[in-house]
C-alpha cells in the first residue's frame, strides 16, 4: 500500500446558497497521519469530508491530495475511500463480496477476490465469516467489514465519517484502539470526523477543532487540551471551568484577570494569543476540574478561589465537587481518589488553589453549548 500521501485544504470555502458551511479552511494533513476534525454537529466537518472524497465541489479554494489538485475529479477517481456513518454495506451481497466490491469493479476474477477477501478478513480478525450476509454480523463486526471494504481499494487516504457513533460505549472504546492499530499497520492517512472529543484525543496525531464552519485550532491532542487558542476550543474539548472578567494587567506570559466573582486571578496567556491581550479587554479564564487542589479555608491570593459547595459526587476514581460558579454554570472540581478521607462540605465555602500554568487566559468568545 502506498503510504504517506498528505492532504491539503487551501482556502477552502463551501457555500450552500447563502449559507456558508465551511469558511476559509486552511489545513495541512501529513501523509500517514491520523487526523481528526472535531466539532459539534452542524459545524461543517462532514462537508469538508465530502469535499475531500469528491462528492462535493468546493465553492472556492482547493483540495490537494498528494500535492495534486482534485478539482473536477469525481469520487470514483480519487485515491480516497470513505467509511459512512451508517457503514452503507450492501445488504444483499455476502461479506466477502462486500469487501472486494472495488476489485469486482476493476474486473478481478472471483478467485482472486475471494483470496484477497480472506486476507482482509484475517486482518480484521473475522476469519471464515466471508459467506455471511452483513445482517448476520454484530455491530462491531459490520464496522470491521466496512473498514476492510474501504482498505481493499488500497486508498491513499481513508475517510471516516463518525463510524463509531452507532456502537455502544464499550465497543466504541474497543474500536478506538483497534482503528488506531489498523491505521499504524497500513500506514495510510486517516481523516476522521467526530463530535466525540474522547475519540479525537485518543486516536489522533493531530486534531482540527471546528465551530460553525470555521477551524478554530489545529494541533496535537495535548496542545488542544492544554493550550487552547479560543474560548470555544477550551470549552468544547474536555470539561472546563470558565471565569469571565477583564484583563487587568499583562506581565510576560501571565495575565491578571479581574473576574466577575472570584476577585483578581492569575492565568497563563495561551500561546496563540500572546501579545494580543491588553488591559481592559474582555477575557475568559479556563481551569480544568482536575487542575484544582484543596487549600486551607480562607487562603487568599491570585491563585486561590473560594466558593460555596452545592453538590458532591463520588465517581470511584475521583470525588467531584460542584460549586457556585462564575457565569451561571456550576464549577466542577475533580479530586483524585487516593484513599484520603473526604468530609462533606455541602453548603459550606471551600477554598481551592491552582498552578498558574494550568489556568489559561483567552479573549472572550462563544462557548460550546452542550
Amino acid at each position, binding site marked *: 500500500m502506498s503510504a504517506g500521501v498528505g492532504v491539503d485544504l487551501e482556502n477552502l470555502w463551501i457555500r450552500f446558497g447563502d449559507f456558508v458551511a465551511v469558511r476559509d479552511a486552511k489545513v495541512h494533513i501529513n501523509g500517514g497521519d491520523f487526523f481528526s476534525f472535531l466539532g459539534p454537529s452542524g459545524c461543517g466537518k462532514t462537508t469538508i469530508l465530502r469535499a475531500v472524497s469528491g*462528492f462535493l465541489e468546493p465553492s472556492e479554494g482547493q483540495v490537494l491530495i498528494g500535492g495534486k489538485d482534485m478539482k473536477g475529479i*469525481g469520487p470514483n477517481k480519487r485515491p480516497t*475511500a470513505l467509511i459512512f456513518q451508517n457503514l*452503507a454495506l450492501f445488504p*444483499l451481497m455476502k461479506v466477502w463480496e462486500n469487501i472486494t*466490491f472495488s476489485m*469486482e*469493479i476493476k474486473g478481478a476474477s472471483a478467485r482472486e477476490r475471494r483470496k484477497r477477501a480472506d486476507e482482509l478478513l484475517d486482518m480484521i480478525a473475522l476469519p471464515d465469516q466471508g459467506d455471511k450476509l452483513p445482517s448476520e454480523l454484530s455491530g462491531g463486526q459490520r464496522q470491521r467489514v466496512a473498514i476492510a471494504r474501504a482498505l481493499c*481499494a488500497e486508498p491513499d487516504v481513508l475517510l471516516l465519517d463518525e463510524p463509531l457513533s452507532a456502537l455502544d460505549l464499550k465497543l466504541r472504546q474497543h474500536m478506538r484502539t483497534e482503528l488506531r492499530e489498523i491505521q499504524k499497520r497500513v500506514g495510510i492517512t486517516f481523516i476522521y470526523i467526530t463530535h466525540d472529543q474522547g475519540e479525537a484525543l485518543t486516536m489522533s496525531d493531530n486534531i482540527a477543532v471546528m465551530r460553525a464552519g470555521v477551524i478554530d485550532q489545529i494541533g496535537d491532542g495535548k496542545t488542544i487540551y492544554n493550550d487552547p487558542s479560543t474560548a470555544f476550543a477550551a470549552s468544547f474539548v474536555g470539561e472546563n471551568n470558565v471565569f469571565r472578567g477583564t484583563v487587568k494587567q499583562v506581565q510576560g506570559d501571565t495575565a491578571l484577570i479581574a473576574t466577575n466573582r472570584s476577585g483578581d486571578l492569575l492565568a497563563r496567556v495561551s500561546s496563540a494569543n500572546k501579545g494580543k491581550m491588553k488591559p481592559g479587554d474582555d477575557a475568559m479564564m479556563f481551569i480544568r476540574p482536575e487542575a484544582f487542589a484543596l487549600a486551607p479555608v480562607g487562603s487568599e491570593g491570585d491563585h486561590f478561589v473560594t466558593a460555596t459547595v452545592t453538590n458532591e459526587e463520588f465517581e470511584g476514581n475521583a470525588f467531584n465537587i460542584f460549586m457556585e460558579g462564575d457565569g451561571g454554570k456550576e464549577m466542577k472540581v475533580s479530586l483524585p481518589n487516593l484513599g484520603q478521607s473526604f468530609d462533606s462540605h455541602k453548603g459550606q465555602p471551600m477554598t481551592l488553589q491552582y498552578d498558574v500554568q494550568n489556568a489559561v487566559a483567552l479573549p472572550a468568545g462563544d462557548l460550546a453549548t452542550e
Partner: protein
Amino acid sequence: MPRFLKEFFDRNGLGIGSLMLGLVLFWTIGLIILPQLSMLDFSFRPNLPPPEIGGPKDVYTMENYKYLVFGPEGGSQDYNAVDLKVFYRTLIAAIFVTIFNLILCYPIAYYLAQTKGNHIRIFALMLIIPYWINEILRAFALRIIFGETGVLNNLLVAAGVFDTPFDFIRNDIALYAGLGYAYILLMIFPIYNVIESLDRNQIEAARDMGASWPMIHRRVVIPYAKPGISSGCTMVFMLSAGALAAPQILGGPSSLWFTQLIYQQFNDNSDWPQGAAYAVVLLVTCILLVLAVMRLFKVNMGDIGK
C-alpha cells in the same frame, strides 16, 4: 385457534376483528374464488339451451378445450390455427409491453425515488392526474393522436418525415402505446416504493469505490429493487394479457387480442362454456409463465407483496 388469528383478535377486539375478517373472506371467497370456480365448472360443460341444463346431456366434457386446439370437429384444418395464433400473439405482445414498460419506468421510478425537492411531487402528480380520466376515454384520445388524420400524422407529414400518413393503428403501434401507457403507474410505483427505501449512502459508497453508473445499477440498485420490479412486471403482464378496452379501440382491424375472442364467445356467440374455457386457458398460462419467470430470476412469492 392458530396463534396469528388469536393475535389478530387480541389486537382488534372480537367485534371489529370478525367484521374485518368477514369482509376479507367475503372478498376473496365470495367475489374471487367462487366465481372463478364456477367459470372453471362452465368450461367443462357443453353449451346447452336452458331447458336442457341439468338434464342427461349436461355432462363434463373436454370439448371446449379441444376446440381451442383442434378447431371445430370435421373442420378443414388439423389445428385451430386462427385462435391459437391470436393466443400466442397476445402473450408475446403482453411480454413485449411488459419489457417496454420496465425499460421506460425504471429510470422514472429511480429518478422520482432518489431525487429530493418539490418538483418531484409535481412530477408525480402529472403522472397520476391523467388516470382520473376513464380508461376508454384515454384509449379514444390515443386514437385521435394516432389516427390517419390524427395529430401525430399531421405533424409528421407537415415536418416532412412521411409523404403520406403512416397507419399507426394497422401497424399496432397505437395498441402497444395504449397498453404501455395504461399501466405505467403500476410499473412505476412498486419500483419507486422499493428504491425510495434504498439508502443513498450505498450508491455513494459504490461510487466512491469507483463503480460506474451501469455497474451501480446492476450490482446495487436493481438487486435491491427486484421485489418491486417483479411486482410491477407481474401486474403489467397480467393486465396487458387480459386487457379488453385498449385492443378493442386501438387494435387494427386484422389484429385480435385473445380477450376479444373470449368476449365474442360470451357475448356474440352466447357460448359461455367456450368462453370460460378460453379464459381459463389464458389465466392458467399467464400464471405458469409468471411463476416460471419468477423462478428464473429467483424471486420469492413473498417478495412480490413487499
